[in-house]
């Protein structure tokens, strides 16, 4: 099979560029420590009340380290807050471990301006870790369609200055 000279150069260039992209991905994982959601366990949605998700909300584990347990359901995030827009408050510089699941249908969990983007599925536990350095209010948005109330499914993380 004959391959034109210019086309051969093009194929080599394509290989080099894709290889460079691949190297950048490897670097993002190895050097910069970006992590994708990975399996941490299953949970029977009927047994959420008897599990670690029985009382969703924020717990402090140490200096500037917290765990947030979330149960998503049609159409709100239960983060242990009773406010109309459920909000948790943490000081700047906090490391937050988010452990979440869904009670009913597929939901999304996206935090504005931070690398938190994970699906919440009934039957599965999702876990993400993230540090909040910048003060401000960042919405937690459900970004997977979950029924007619989907667009109202929003919570917030309030990051305060100082301690």
């Amino acid at each position, binding site marked *: 099979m004959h*391959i034109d000279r210019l086309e051969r150069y093009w194929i080599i260039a394509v290989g080099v560029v894709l290889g460079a992209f691949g190297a950048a991905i490897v670097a993002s994982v190895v050097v910069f420590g970006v992590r994708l959601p990975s399996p941490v366990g299953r949970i029977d949605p009927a047994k959420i009340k008897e599990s670690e998700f029985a009382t969703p909300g924020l717990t402090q584990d140490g200096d500037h380290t917290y765990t947030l347990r979330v149960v998503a359901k049609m159409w709100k995030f239960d983060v242990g807050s009773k406010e109309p827009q459920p909000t948790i408050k943490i000081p700047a510089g906090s490391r937050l471990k988010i452990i979440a699941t869904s009670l009913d249908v597929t939901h999304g969990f996206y935090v504005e301006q931070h690398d938190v983007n994970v699906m919440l599925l009934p*039957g599965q536990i999702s876990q993400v870790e993230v540090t909040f350095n910048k003060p401000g209010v960042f919405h937690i948005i459900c970004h997977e369609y979950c029924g007619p109330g989907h667009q109202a499914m929003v919570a917030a993380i309030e990051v305060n200055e100082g301690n």
Partner: protein
Amino acid sequence: MQHTKALTITPELTFPKVGFLTSEQWIVGSHVLTGLMALLIGIFLGPFQVFRRAPALKWAIPVFSYYYQALTVHGVMNALFFTTFFIVGFSYFTVMRSLKRNMWSTKLVWAAYVLMLVGLLLVVYALVTNQANVLYTFYPSLIAHPAFYLGLVLLVVGTWLVTANLFLTYMLWRKENPQEHLPLAVFATLTNFVLWCVASFGVAIEVLFMLLPLSLGLISHTDPQAGRALFWFFGHPLVYFWLLPAYTSWYAMLPKQANSRIFSDPLARVAFILLMIFSIPVGVHHMFTDPGVSAVMKGIQTVFTFVVAIPSLLTAFNVGAMLERAGRNRGAKGPFDWMWKQDWRNPVIAAQISAMILFITGGISGIMNASLTLNIALHNTSWIPAHFHQTLGGAVTLTFMGICYWLIPMIRGRGLYSANVALWQVHTWSIGMMIFGYTYGAAGLLGVPRRTDLGAAPYINELAVPYLNASVIGGVLLLISGILFFVNIFGTLFFSKAPLTEEAPIDTYVESKSPLWMEKWGLWLSIVAILCVIAWVPVFLEVFDFTNGFQTPGYNPNGGIYKP
């Protein structure tokens, strides 16, 4: 036989009107026009989604309170029914014309058509009666009315019959012409239906064993993570099923239309083979943020996704070189002037080149989506609709529109209603899609979610407001473009007085000697099977809960546990 001979010697301008060939006109026409009817239902909801999501305009459409019903209609009609019907009709045309014979069985053609049409009607029923607001991905544990799933099953079973018919036609031809070189367009069509058939097993299993029985009340539980894996086994090859007919037109038809020649026929075939094989082991790139799939499998499928980018980049070179030749024939001398020295006055050519331009950003944004860790910044934001309106809404749909500008006149035996209207349509479409892509892409990077009725949302992303408002310009241009398209289609069908001038841009012979080993379908399928074992079996072992089975009940999209 008189009519066959006429077709061989002089390229007929229109569909021959005698004997079984009359049915050729009907076969192609009915499929393509049914597809366009689905597009007519789906397309005009798009601009209103844009308006509804723009803070400046959301109050202007308070009646649009059926956002998710409309979005399901938009996705299902455009992406599932328009594409499938159009592609089947176009593939019949390509195969019959190139091989100069009728389909293996005309009865089978019509049986498949009726199945798919009944499927369409069932789905429309479920959607219109507000019982299937599950979007075109219908993820469990949201459960729709059984008619929705049944309709999809009929659509898929119909396409299996189409595949059988196409292959039997090809095998008959091969038996009679053992040494002849298979026209590229037919080769491409066959690869497309192979990948479609392999892919459709994923969705068939999902619908037949998880969704339809639950919807009918035969079982009571499902597993959303397993459902997503089965869906995306199908979902990624699905996008190639849309794309390959556009490539077929660029490789095998545009050279004739642009008065050029294909640059490399064998490498085009290699590209189609690679697309057929490597579109299968990559679907996990839609599940990078899923909790139930391991990072290792996500990494492995990322590698394959990069491999499946290669044939598209080969296509860029091959088609680009063909267009350079076309430009040189029109007097281009410099290194770049061939790009604009094309026949931009011809809407068929303008549509296809504009489609390619949209595919540049579509392809680059696609490689970004596939880049594992980068996906965290993009997944389910409005970046994603920005991406696939450059690829599916842009490259594929605009190419199909360009095809309509010669195919609909042929079906009707009259000239195109208005080439000027067609040119305006092409340019408003490409500029509209570019604006849509830019504004939605930027808004997505700032955190605007997709699939969300922002007009009714209680929060607002101040940073993204200017982009969402600017997207309205794209929406208006696309609305105009959609109207112009259908004006031309209905004009050609009912009002055109012009005589037909364009002939079918079909190759019936092949100059270059592409090796016959390329038609070793069994070999390709074996490679696909091996790749499935490497890339998919571990994923299914992860997502299925073999000890507890299904544990999640079905839910009605409008709230509450699903009751059949």
